[in-house]
């Protein structure tokens, strides 16, 4: 029995280590945190942001996996939704960046001046696509 518990314990820690390391690795590759620090000019708070990410991950794993609920007002979902969306939006933007899609595309089509308008196309595409997905596509 003790052996079994120890093995399960060990597997759990191993899995958590791999997933946690992977998560941090992908965040580092995408460079979202440096970007946010650059925008907000808070380079000194790097440690704080690290703690923020770690506690977010630990809290969400625990809270999410335990099927708990806080029976709170649905209005709390609005700020959570905005925060989730912003994070995913930055991830998506960073991913396009890492894949080097835009520089090549801009060079090919040769619209350097209208870069912003083309960025807007991507941005509204994401926004409308997401809205369409939630309001129509999921009902199909």
């Amino acid at each position, binding site marked *: 029995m003790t052996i079994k518990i120890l093995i399960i314990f060990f597997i759990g820690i191993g899995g958590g280590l791999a997933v946690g390391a992977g998560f941090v690795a992908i965040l580092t590759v995408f460079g979202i945190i440096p970007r946010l620090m650059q925008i907000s000019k808070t380079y000194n708070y790097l440690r704080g942001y690290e703690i923020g990410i770690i506690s977010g991950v630990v809290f969400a794993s625990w809270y999410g996996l335990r099927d708990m609920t806080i*029976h709170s007002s649905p209005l709390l979902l609005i700020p959570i939704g905005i925060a989730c969306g912003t994070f995913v939006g930055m991830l998506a933007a960073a991913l396009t960046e890492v894949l080097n899609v835009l520089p090549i595309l801009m060079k090919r089509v040769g619209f350097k001046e209208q870069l912003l308008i083309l960025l807007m*196309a991507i941005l509204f595409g994401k926004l409308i696509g997401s809205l369409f997905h939630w309001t129509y596509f999921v009902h199909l």
Partner: protein
Amino acid sequence: MDVEILYLRMRHRLVVSPDQTVRVKDIAQLVGPDDTTSTIGQLTIHKITVHDKTIVVIDLMKVLQRIRNFNPGLEVQTVGPVQTIIEVNYPKTKITGVYFVLVWMLLFIGSALAIMNFHEDVSMQSVHQKIYYLITGKQNDYPLLLQIPYSFGLGLGMVLFFNHIFKKRFNEEPSPLEVEMFNYQQDLDLYVIMNENKENEKKTNDD
């Protein structure tokens, strides 16, 4: 008599119109005695023809050769890049507008499809249902109260990342996209420099 020294620095990149004659002053910055810089500056280095297509690379040696032929006694000190990339700017055709709209639509529809695929791929719907339950304690198959702010947040996140609210930027620093475009251009330039020079070499050997 003092030795005349002419300081010469090749420009990195030069945009010209078709049929333009490229002179020394166009492709290089010159510092030296006024009369020397003005006469040397007027020397013709290259005449753009249709044969050149869009990119010509002028090597520093070619410029030095030209200056030397003109005035063998002049001492030239060179600084900076050893070649200039000349980009021939042909007038744009009229269909650009239509083309632009097509590209816009392509990007718009493409990114909409990409985000939908992403949501399906990571089971975003069930994650949102779960978040709805975690907060409110009720089951809701369509948690729009979470999903609509989420969608707008998506747009906001991309704006933040690219450092633009359309025309207005948050700060003076270049956006990652601009840096990325710059890097890509640098790579292209390096390729062009190497490649065009190799071609020149081959041509002289063939002759």
